[in-house]
């Protein structure tokens, strides 16, 4: 088997393992916690008979192992149960919301990289000087921010005080064609920028550290000695090698990004999965909460695997790692 294929197969195996782990943890937590779903579906003034019918309907009267098998089987078929409050399949509730979350997280990730890399380069090429210190202070500062705080303040300043941008939702209802796309874009700006700000610190600081290191490597010295222009040495030679730790950061931060999206969508009433979680919390709609976690976990695992595979193809060192 060529190494690329072996790497891909191993990576796929890990993705499947992660998904199995995520769904099993969810199953066990739901069954073993004090407030188990049987208590969640029953109400105190139910008759014993009604309670038993309900438990049977949800399969909660069967042995744990049977329940587990059925649960996995249903998951494999994309069946995440039925929403308590809306009486429709959880999967259809959530899949309608998923594109908004993907749009928000994806655009904020791209924006973070587009801003974070120049910021890191700016700092690394002037180590321990004023500009570098400023980037470091900024990086630590934004890393320490509470996600909703950023959203609330952007909303307050640019939405409510200056009226530059809409304060909530994902689009203007009743608008079609080109205007609809414009409204989607204008609704996206504030949540996207909030999510970018809270991620920016770790990207800029990581890139700064690795770039300072690769600027001290022999090949950079050689490139300088050859008389290459400074910008070419930094952007073409040193940066390329410094990018790998930064791209692994994408994978490490995906979980945090999703958590941030839940909070940001809540602040901006953005109709994604995260806002769905918030609404399900207020209504104690457990199937939606469970489905949202499984769906988000699957998305994270899939994206993680795809980025890893892309880098395995691009960088031969990754394949052997």
């Amino acid at each position: 088997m060529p190494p690329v294929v072996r790497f891909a197969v191993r990576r796929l195996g890990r993705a499947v393992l992660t998904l199995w782990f995520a769904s099993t943890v969810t199953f066990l937590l739901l069954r073993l916690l004090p407030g188990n779903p049987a208590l969640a579906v029953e109400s105190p003034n139910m008759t014993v008979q009604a309670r038993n019918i309900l438990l049977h309907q949800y399969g909660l009267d069967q042995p744990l192992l049977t329940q587990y098998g059925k649960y996995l089987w249903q998951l494999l078929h994309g069946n995440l149960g039925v929403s308590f409050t809306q009486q429709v399949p959880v999967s259809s509730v959530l899949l309608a919301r998923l594109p908004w979350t993907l749009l928000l997280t994806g655009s904020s990730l791209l924006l973070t990289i587009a801003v974070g890399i120049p910021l890191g380069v700016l700092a690394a090429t002037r180590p321990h000087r004023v500009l570098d210190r400023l980037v470091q202070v900024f990086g630590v500062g934004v890393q320490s921010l509470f996600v909703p705080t950023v959203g609330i303040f952007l909303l307050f300043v640019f939405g409510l005080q200056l009226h530059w941008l809409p304060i909530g939702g994902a689009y203007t209802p009743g608008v079609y064609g080109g205007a609809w796309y414009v409204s989607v874009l204008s609704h996206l700006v504030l949540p996207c920028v909030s999510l970018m700000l809270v991620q920016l610190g770790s990207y800029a600081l990581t890139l700064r550290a690795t770039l300072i290191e690769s600027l001290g490597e022999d090949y950079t010295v050689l490139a300088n000695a050859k008389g290459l222009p400074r910008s070419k040495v930094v952007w073409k030679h040193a940066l390329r090698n410094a990018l790998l730790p930064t791209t692994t950061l994408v994978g490490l931060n995906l979980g945090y990004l999703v958590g941030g999206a839940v909070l940001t969508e809540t602040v901006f009433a953005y109709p994604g999965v995260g806002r769905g979680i918030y609404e399900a919390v207020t209504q104690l709609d457990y199937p939606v909460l469970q489905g949202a976690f499984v769906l988000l976990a699957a998305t994270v695992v899939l994206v993680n695997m795809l980025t890893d595979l892309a880098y395995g193809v691009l960088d031969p060192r990754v394949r052997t790692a």
Partner: protein
Amino acid sequence: MSVGALDSVTTEAPTAARATWSAFRRNPLGMISLVVLALIVLVAIFAPLVVSEPQGYGGAVLRAPSGSHIFGTDNLGRDIFAEVVWGTRISVLVAAASSALAIVIGVLVAVLGAYFPKADTVIGTIVDLCLSLPVLPLMILVTALAGTSLLTEILIIAFFSWPEVARVVRSQALSAVRLPYMDAARLTGGSSTWIIRKHLLPAVAPVVIVSVALTSSRAVLTAASLAFLGLGGVTNWSWGRILFESEQSGAMSSAWWTTLFPSLAMLVLVVSATLISITYNDARNPRSRED
């Protein structure tokens, strides 16, 4: 190192700690952060002496900061300064308790894994799996099911924070286990518990100190996130709950002070914890130390 190698363990530890401390003291940023953090903890402990518990549905609703209410009042006329001060109690308590628990579990798992290679494959895989999942949605699900008491909140945050601790400590422990002095300790016939306690734990101690700072500040933000989503309980004041109530009542769109001050409290706490860990890391490393 001219004295017996056995003595060096006992004599070197205090001097290394002293060198770190004296380097730490010379960094004004680190010292200021330490003082700020100490102040926050003091406010948390002595909150009742600072200001009385926020209550009284006064007529002064949504008043901007002024002499009588320095942080202003919320939609029910409660003093936000009192809410922030009393919120410090719960926020600090949750951070301290849950990070302590997460550190104990994480260090134990990491050290046992590093010391017993057979267990390490399983532990390493579990830690990796936990870290690759979106934790907040899972915590939301669990909190919604288990209820919002203070104890369950602490347990849940700890339960989802230890893998991060284990990851950091494990990599340090794995490199320490390979060092010659560990073989020497094994050759002297010492028991595993003795070697782990006397040799492995001190080797990972610096990493543990850094993760205490990071885990506890992350716990503050996690607790606030849960509270902001309405999973914080309404019996105690916390910084997240002030934000949640501001969002729920719609006060956040007109009264900036209802969100600014709890947010600032969180920012100050997290920044000082981060700066302390950065300063400590620099002070501990003889190469970055300017002595």
